[in-house]
């Protein structure tokens, strides 16, 4: 028994042995995209204790600092993927269309090999989601792609039992239209969602009424608790939606109940960019190499990014891995630029915009003093097909290095490199 405990302790410690350096480390000579300021040529980034100590062109490097010469390289913040299915998690089942009590974290595999795709692609923060085959498929999980054994090694929240560690996945349109008990039409989908939120409002009222006399409080209800976090603005709704009318329905419901929402996919955003901007709702886009695959996505067009930028809406990008590959998130920003978005906004869409959509922008998304030392070193321009992610760093710890043969294999694939495939599309 003691042996087992010892072994368990060793396991825990072995993970934490890889600790951020408390002596400063300087990366000198790169072109640095800080995101929150103009790019710095021949810049230096200094990190210490997992945080950014300083970044700039002419900054003093402390005498005790370890210095890496990264001349000719490009440094930018670690990428934020606002929507992914890596880690083999799961959400609600077919017993119903609404699962606010289901937590992806209870099924997520922090040791999943497919997370290496994210590290190889320079993704340091990910919103891991359950699928879109439900109106509400469950609670999502915000992680860093740190290496670890238990979910707490990866989560951004400190305590998965006590904290709110992610958002809520919702969807409308055809993915969630199925046989009973699922809705059969779009209007029914909206009605079912509204009914549920009205129930949650009632529950919330009862809780408030019983504030001073806990014995009068209603019995605990996991479903209601998940929804109240949404109503109180503590849990963000990540809403899968494609067609222009579905998008506006999602916005309408969010306004009715006053919850925070991020629109995901939004194939037809270019048709209603002004309306989205007017509603002050952020959008996370995905680019698929051809339109269609289902009726509601036949008008998908990568010009959405530029249209939204012009309208003044916030835009981020996501992989929806396995729909697009985590190793190619940079490509999304490049496609957005090809179709008219400005480069600074596109780079922001890979980083700070996504961080804001997860309300993590106080810690991540830009290279600023005091923020987490999450950054990537690139071989060249972030928007070039020929550019490779050479290193990925999270809180001062390297999680991917292309100079390492094993890591290189994760960047290209090969025999037994990814033994488990990421399945799950919209079930």
């Amino acid at each position, binding site marked *: 028994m003691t042996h087992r405990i010892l072994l368990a302790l060793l396991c825990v410690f072995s993970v934490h042995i890889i600790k951020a350096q408390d002596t400063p480390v300087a990366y000198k000579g790169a072109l640095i995209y800080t995101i929150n300021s103009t790019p710095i040529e021949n810049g230096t980034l200094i990190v210490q204790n997992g945080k950014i100590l300083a970044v700039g062109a002419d900054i003093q490097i402390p005498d005790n600092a370890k210095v890496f010469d990264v001349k000719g390289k490009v440094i930018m913040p670690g990428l934020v993927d606002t929507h992914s299915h890596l880690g083999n998690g799961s959400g609600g089942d077919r017993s119903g269309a609404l699962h606010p009590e289901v937590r992806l974290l209870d099924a997520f595999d922090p040791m999943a090999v497919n997370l290496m795709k994210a590290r190889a692609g320079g993704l340091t923060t990910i919103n891991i989601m359950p699928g879109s085959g439900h109106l509400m498929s469950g609670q999502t999980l915000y992680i860093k792609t740190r290496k670890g054994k238990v979910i707490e090694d990866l989560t951004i929240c400190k305590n998965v039992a006590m904290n709110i560690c992610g958002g809520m996945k919702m969807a409308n349109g055809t993915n969630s239209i199925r046989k009973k008990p699922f809705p059969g039409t779009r209007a029914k989908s909206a009605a079912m969602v509204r009914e549920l939120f009205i129930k949650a409002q009632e529950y919330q009222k009862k809780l408030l009424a019983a504030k001073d006399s806990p014995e009068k409080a209603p019995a605990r209800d996991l479903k209601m608790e998940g929804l109240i976090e949404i109503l109180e603005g503590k849990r963000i709704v990540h809403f899968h939606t494609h067609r222009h009318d579905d998008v506006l329905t999602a916005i309408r419901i969010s306004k009715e109940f006053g919850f925070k929402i991020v629109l995901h996919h939004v194939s037809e955003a270019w048709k209603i960019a002004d309306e989205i901007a007017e509603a002050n709702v952020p959008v996370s886009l995905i680019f*698929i*190499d*051809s*339109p*269609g*695959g*289902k*009726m509601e*996505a*036949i008008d998908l067009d990568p010009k959405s990014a530029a249209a939204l930028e012009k309208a003044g809406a916030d835009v981020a990008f996501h992989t929806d891995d*396995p*729909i*697009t*590959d985590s190793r*190619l998130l940079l*490509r999304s920003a*490049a*496609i957005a*630029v*090809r179709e008219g978005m400005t480069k600074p906004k596109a780079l922001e869409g890979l980083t700070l915009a996504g961080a804001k959509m997860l309300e993590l922008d106080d810690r991540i998304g830009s290279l600023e003093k005091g923020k987490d030392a999450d950054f990537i070193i690139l071989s060249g321009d972030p*928007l*070039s*097909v*020929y550019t*490779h992610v050479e290193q990925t760093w999270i809180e001062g710890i390297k999680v991917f290095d292309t100079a390492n043969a094993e890591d290189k294999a994760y960047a*290209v*694939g*090969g*025999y*037994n*490199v*990814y*033994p488990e*495939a*990421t*399945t799950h*599309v919209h079930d």
Partner: protein
Amino acid sequence: MINLKSMTNYKLIIGLLLLAAQLTSAQIAIKGETIYTVSGKTITDGVILIEDGKITKVGVASKVRIPKNYKVYSGKVVTPGLVDAHATVGFSGIYNNESDQMQLEKSSPIQPELRAIDGYNPQEALVKYLNSKGVTTVHTGHGPGAVISGQTFIAKTDGETIDIVTLDDATMLAMTIGPSVSRNFKSPGTAAKEIAMLRTELLKAQEYQKKKQNDDISKHPSRNLKMEALVQLLEGKMKALVTVNSSNLIMTAIRLAEEFNLKLVLDGAAESYLLIDEIKTSKAEVILHPTKARGYGDMKNMSWDTAAKLTESGIPVAIQSGYEPYVPKTRVILYEAAIAVASGLSFEDGLKSITFNAAKIIGQDDKVGSIEKGKDADIVIYDGDPFEYLTHVCTVITNGKVTHQECE
């Protein structure tokens, strides 16, 4: 009044004639800062002349005079129209519902008699979409997922009817070896059974072929569409397009091709990098899976550098758009080759994989796949490196007609 009216008609007719001439058999000149002819030398500051849908002249600008009446298009980079070596586009449509998914008939696992020309929709939105991304020729047809799913054919991506678009009406027989077959049929349920069924059918076809060769016509067997198609395969008039990914089953495909003397095209071929010598010896041709394909099932060992590895070893590859059950409903070979080029394939070989090599494997290298005098005037103009993410496909010319234009 009468004069005026006839005058207007006269002008209208002339105008229409001019317009028609411009749209169909226009005389076009293309000026390119860099022209990748693919089959020959790359030309800096070059000119291509087009007349009646064919390339009539290619050379450096200083030596090729552009006649006055030619409409001139110019751009930074010029390549041949792209050739997609294997697609299901036109069979699997944009909506992805049962009314537009015609790439796989599930009533029986062996149906070589299914002709591609009877199933292709030349007006499919995704065919037009591919044209706008530079793809002017597609080898498409029945998809993977059956032991023999049917025939493939070759089409140009511009034109409204099957007769107009068809370059070759029966090119290959689409076969699959591997686990995807048993997902679609009760039997075969294993790869070994797939091969046993295939060999049984091919033996029957050999018998049928023998009987057909009898000088006494009265002894000929009655017509059998299935057998007729398989005889075409045995006679090498159609190639065997075998979708297979795992290394052991690639060897099985090679063994089968040897036994029946089939012209083998390995399709998908995710683990082909493990069998470079064996594939070389077999003389099989390779149409690689899309570089960005998902590593599901027997694709799990796929790698982005397979095209580079095969090419380095002397096996020319074509990169395909392939079949996608979900999204993207069609892939774009330009984007797939780009990732292969970023993963170690040379620029020139990347371009070859979606032009010349593809044209060769599908047997159309006399018409498409390179910029040469006498070939079809299928040309793409770009505003930069074709593989770069930021580059636009500016102008697409198909059979001498401008079919897409987007750069100002």
